[in-house]
């Protein structure tokens, strides 16, 4: 039999591997956001239900728990695929640096274990535990979700700010896994992601009920289902502005090339303007609206601060400017829009002394769901594409990390098909779950019977 051996990776294979990783990560990050924030919101309504005895809260808690069961299952499997893909697609990264960034992944393994165990207890113990014990069983899920976010994002942060090792003739020596985990990018990145998770979850959950109310179902069940998650996300929206500013300052100080790509700055200058919109063509940003000195001010709190331009590094060390610039702008624009809707919500509530439910407000609120997901994706696009051509910033190029095995494009097509099916099935099941009567037995075995499903 003829041997089928690997040769050097082709550009097509590298592209395929990057797209496959982007799709799998981009898919999982949405589900993972729900995994982090949804238990907290669900636990809150369960607690309110026990405290007030109102059946709507209890019904919502059950419904959300059931959706959580589905989301957690697809999150578990889509997360597993990622751990496979780290080796299948990027053996050059894992073979050399696996030991440096393995510790946070191990910790995440434990965090995920705790989440899986207590989610099982929470979902299946609903009718078997006392309400108090049952609510306490959700607390480890919340803690593990937050901790897991920190661990996983710290591994990604390490790729932006590699620490905790030295290179000697291409060999990794002097490994300090704790220094790698607590690299300087970890705090801003992980907090940014954590807040994003709450915004995505809150706005998406609220969007479901906003649409219901727009269709005329303005009962108490829908109003609570809207107000609770929306309030959570609305509180997070201004927080995210501050955290995002922190993250941007960090990039300005530690990854000037990424900042230059985000803003489309080519020449190193003082007093650099902020560019809104625009397209990079032939080494300059065209058609952008300029706000004088604003970038220097925002990035360094000094209107005359120096901003390093892309021309500081050779062309082969630059990320693709248009992708990074536009995705960053999209994230900021969406974030600002969500902040505006959150402010509108607060203002109307203050004026009416009751949660708003006007038509146009609900339309805007419903749009916040997809907007939050899009902002999440464009934010990750900014940081991941902005790090290119490096997979480990300054140390290892993405091209040198990819699996040289032929046929990665075939793998990509297969994975795309599977994810398309998975997406369709997940959306379908979640929609049916919101509608189905009689209510299926899972994940809990009986339902709140006093109230008909509105």
């Amino acid at each position, binding site marked *: *039999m003829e*041997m*089928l*051996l*690997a040769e050097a990776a082709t550009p097509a294979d590298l592209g395929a591997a990057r797209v496959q990783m982007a799709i799998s990560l981009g898919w999982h990050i949405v589900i993972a956001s729900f995994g982090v924030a949804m238990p907290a919101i669900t636990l809150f309504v369960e607690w309110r239900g026990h405290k007030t005895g109102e059946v709507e809260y209890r019904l919502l808690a059950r419904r959300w728990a059931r959706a959580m*069961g*589905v989301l*957690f*299952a697809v999150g*578990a*499997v889509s997360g*597993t695929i990622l*751990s*496979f893909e780290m*080796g*299948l697609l990027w*053996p050059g990264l*894992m*073979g050399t*640096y*696996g*030991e*440096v960034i*393995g*510790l946070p*992944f*191990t*910790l*995440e*393994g*434990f965090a*995920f*274990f705790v989440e*899986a*165990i*207590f*989610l*099982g*207890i929470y*979902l*299946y113990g609903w009718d*078997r*535990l006392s309400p108090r014990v049952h609510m306490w069983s959700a607390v480890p899920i919340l803690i593990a979700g937050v901790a897991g976010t920190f661990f996983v994002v710290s591994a990604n942060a390490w790729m932006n700010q590699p620490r905790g090792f030295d290179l000697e003739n291409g060999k990794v020596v*002097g490994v*300090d896994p704790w220094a790698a985990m607590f690299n300087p990018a970890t705090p801003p990145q992980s907090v940014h992601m954590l807040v994003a998770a709450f915004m995505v979850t809150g706005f998406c959950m609220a969007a479901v009920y906003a649409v219901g109310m727009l269709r005329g179902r303005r009962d108490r069940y829908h109003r609570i289902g809207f107000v609770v998650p929306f309030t959570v996300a609305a509180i997070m929206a201004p927080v995210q502005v501050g955290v995002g500013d922190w993250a941007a300052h960090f990039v300005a100080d530690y990854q000037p090339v990424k900042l230059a790509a985000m803003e489309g700055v080519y020449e190193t200058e003082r007093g650099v303007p902020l560019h809104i919109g625009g397209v990079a063509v032939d080494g300059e940003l065209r058609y952008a609206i300029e706000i004088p000195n604003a970038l220097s001010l925002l990035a360094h709190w000094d209107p005359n601060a120096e901003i390093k331009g892309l021309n500081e590094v050779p062309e082969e060390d630059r990320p693709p400017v248009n992708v990074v610039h536009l995705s960053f702008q999209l994230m900021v624009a969406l974030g600002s829009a969500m902040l505006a809707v959150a402010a509108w919500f607060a203002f109307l509530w203050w004026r009416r002394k009751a949660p708003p439910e006007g038509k146009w407000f609900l339309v805007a609120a419903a749009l916040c769901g997809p907007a939050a997901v899009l902002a999440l994706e464009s934010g990750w696009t900014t940081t991941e594409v902005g790090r290119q051509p490096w997979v480990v910033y300054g140390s290892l190029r993405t091209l040198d990390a990819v699996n040289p*095995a032929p*046929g990665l494009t075939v793998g990509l097509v*297969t*994975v795309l098909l*599977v994810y398309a099916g998975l997406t369709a*099935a*997940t959306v379908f*099941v979640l929609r*049916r*779950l919101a509608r*189905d009567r009689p209510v*299926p037995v*899972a*994940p809990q075995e*009986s339902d709140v019977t006093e109230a008909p499903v509105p």
Partner: protein
Amino acid sequence: MTAADLLLLLLLAAMTAYALFGGADFGAGFWDLVAGGAERGRPHRKLIEHSIGPVWEANHVWLIFTIVVLWTGFPSVFAAVASTLYIPLTAAALGIIGRGAGFAFRKTSVTLGRQRLFGAGFAFSSIVTPFFLGAAAGGVASGRVPPGIAAGDLVSSWWNPTSVATGLLAVGVGAYLAVVFLTRDAQKHAPELVDGLRRRALWTGAVVGALAVLGLVVVAADAPALFSELRHGVPLALVVVSLVAGLLSLLLVNFRSFVAVRITASLAAAAVVWAWGAAQHPFLLPGLAVADAAAAPAVTRAMLWVSLAGGVILAPSLWWLFRIASAGSVRS
């Protein structure tokens, strides 16, 4: 014993846990597939759902843990295995998606058509996934995955006699463990199913035992280096343990000791994994020994401390989960 050796033991323990618990979950999918038409198979499917529903996600984490410990503790081994065995591992990964999603979706479905669709996805991938994982293990065991990135043959590394035998054995062992575990669950929750399950446990045990012996013959012919290690010392002892535990399990099933057989059947399966590990020791891949493949001591030590702390949290949590899962009854 160095920190690297301890970490290798931890890796072996995680693999064993996945082979037993994850394997039984895959096996449950096998029985789901062959349970018969929608009406006839309903009681069995309900029992399967009740048994694995609360625990499969936790069981699944053992796989993630195995992967992570491998890439942290022995990074070059992970890179070599993942890059050369790209094809079966991609297939297994996709199977994992189909399995988990199909099972979760079916639980929430009310209509027969949807239950059939998602159930078929769940059951089919429950067979595909362990086969490819087993085939990948067979490739490593028969020395077909050399160190280096994608240095081995991309097809014959997993499509060879040892891999096929290991893949089939993985499917069979999972099915056997599942039917053994389900028989005990049926005793508590669905007594009318016990006799049928017991019959299945008996013939599955016989088939898997035959597969295991056949596997040894295949290994003798196809992977003489591995076989010569299996012929003496600790590996031989473990092979004997597996065979004895397997035979004992058949007797216990026959005499309806459904609790005791859980232990012997698990031991029979675990001893196969351990025998493989002992036969390869100290080599992880051809020419690559533990000491050369291990991560820096700072890393292995940190991993061990973290795992110790994690274990202290996990053990009581898992105990509580399994207790809640086994309580209650199968309701309609």
